[in-house]
């Protein structure tokens, strides 16, 4: 019997196997949207519960990973909406970011550490910046799709993306120069 059928039937072993297969990739997705690691785990938990409960709706069209990603992304967006902080306003938390960068300037291997720091930076970004940045770059949403998803205008989406990129680029520069 296919592992999907087993999962649909409620086989815990099969469900755990599926979870193990995709948990890391999905966790990274959650990290990009969440404010913290704990929140990311909450999103991942709720997301996989939803995946297993709705798995019977997966028709086989498209790959399974894409379907799971979509489910968990929806949970992440719901999480963001619940935050009620989705205000596309510039924040003057540059100093805070800087402090974070200084603290996290460790001695781990280059690539992974940099990405980890960027992730950490993103988590500290205003939620609007972070969400637009993620949806546009990682999920490859158009500005129109972002506007529809978040209930904002296309212009706001574009401006927030530019500001988020500028902030991120500047902060990454600092990290690089410190190294």
């Amino acid at each position, binding site marked *: 019997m296919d592992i999907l059928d087993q999962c649909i039937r409620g086989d815990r072993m099969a469900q755990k196997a599926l979870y193990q297969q995709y948990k890391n990739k999905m966790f990274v997705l959650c990290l990009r949207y969440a404010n913290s690691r704990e929140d990311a785990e909450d999103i991942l938990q*709720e997301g996989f519960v939803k995946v297993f409960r709705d798995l019977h709706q997966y028709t086989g069209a498209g790959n399974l990973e894409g379907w799971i990603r979509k489910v968990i992304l929806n949970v992440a967006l719901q999480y963001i909406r619940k935050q009620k902080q989705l205000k596309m306003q510039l924040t003057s938390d540059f100093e805070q970011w800087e402090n974070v960068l200084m603290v996290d300037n460790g001695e781990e291997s280059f690539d992974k550490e*940099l990405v*980890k720091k960027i992730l950490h930076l993103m988590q500290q970004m205003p939620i609007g910046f972070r969400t637009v940045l993620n949806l546009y770059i*990682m999920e490859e949403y158009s500005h129109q799709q972002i506007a529809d998803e978040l209930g904002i205008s296309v212009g706001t989406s574009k401006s927030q993306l530019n500001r988020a990129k500028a902030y991120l680029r500047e902060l990454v520069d600092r990290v690089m120069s410190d190294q």
Partner: protein
Amino acid sequence: MENNLHNDGLDDFLRKSFEQYDDSPSDGLWDKIEADLTDEPKVVPIRTTYRWWATAAAALFLALVVGQHIYFQKEKTELIDRINAQAKKIETLEKELINKETTEIKIAKNNGSENIFNDNKEPINSETNSFSENSKKNKPNNNYSKENKSSTVHLISEQPNFIENKNNNTDINKIEKNNLIENNNEVETIAKIGNNDLIENNNEVEIIAGQQKLIAPNSLDLIGLKNIDSFTPNLSLPTTPIIPAVNSGKFSIGIHHSHLSTREKMARVIQRPLIGPNRIFNNTSAMTGTTQVTGIGATYKTKNNWLLESGLNYRKTNLSTSHHAQLRFMDRRPDTNNQQHDFVYALNTSAGIVDIEVRADQTDPTETINEFENITINIKADQAIEYVSIPLLIGKQLGYGRFNTTIKSGFLFNFLTSQSLDISGSISNSKLRSSRTVYSRRNGIGLKILQTDFMAMVGLNYNLNKNGVHIFHPPWLCQWAIAIMTHILNRQVFLAGSILG
């Protein structure tokens, strides 16, 4: 990587970086997911439960109100169907009657016979008869040729006088399928209605009326049938019964009494002043009734506040129906006794359909009743119906406080113990005086010995003291149930007002 960041390659940098990045959630996360996947029943707060029951109570109340409305609509529809069916039946009878009174016109030649074919059975004076005059002009010597053949044409006498204004030739042209034979410009028309006593008249066109006097349609009267102009059921709120009860925990017993009054009005108009049997053209009915229920009830309450209830009730319903039928004298056929007139009315009662014959005599036998005389018939029927009822109900008490609510539903088994029927009738017209009213059961379904009703009610309880020993129990919504039951009861006794020929 640095170049990527500075050369607008941030998008690709981030995308590739995150795709390659790997991170794991904490080890215990699966256990949380597994726990969530296990459908553990959630604890429903009491408040939610209360809301559910409140919703149920509201839905029940709504169902009662809507059900009552639908019930009355259905009753009205049934009434209309019934009247339509009866009207159709009357119409059929009427056509049959008309067909029987087909006019047979015979054109023949005659030689010197005496005319006796008028209403008065007297010879028509040719000098005063326009047709005779015309005929005379055509045939001065009044002689028919015996060699001529005769033929017969049947006409429906919708317009019995249609020949009067015609001359001989026109008559022939008007008659369908005329196999008329003319001889020497002599045409004679003989009308035959109802009998075979045909006597031909020399050289004259005559109209022979039958023995029965037919009343021609009058254009002033509307042709058509209007059914129910209005039907107004009206439930008056009854006196609120107070049910004191003694409660010993599981068992409680109490007495109750309630009083309900109802009032309904119905009016319908039938306007068909065609020839035929008696015809009402305006009928108004009104009903007033009271229902009193007195009884004793016992309730067993389970730990979960479920209730099982039964008892013994005495129910008495008094109904008074009055009918005012307005008709015109021309709408009926006078009987053989021109000074005595019968009007038959059909009334649905608890004992089935009852024919009510209201007989009236002329106050002055020498006076002629005008064909357009307005006559009003008043019929009053008083009925008393008594039942002994045994309810079997199941319910639920909602709440535990001093105030709480009870919803109940179940069946009520009604045993008919007695019924009485008193009918009187009269005629209102200065030229007529009522001589007597005769009524007899014809057919139809009366009340059954056992009648089962479904009932539902909502009651409000108030505990006089904390121990709940005494319960103040005014189940006000119960009255809606009683009202519905009463109308179910009344349905068979109120659908009245049918006139029979």
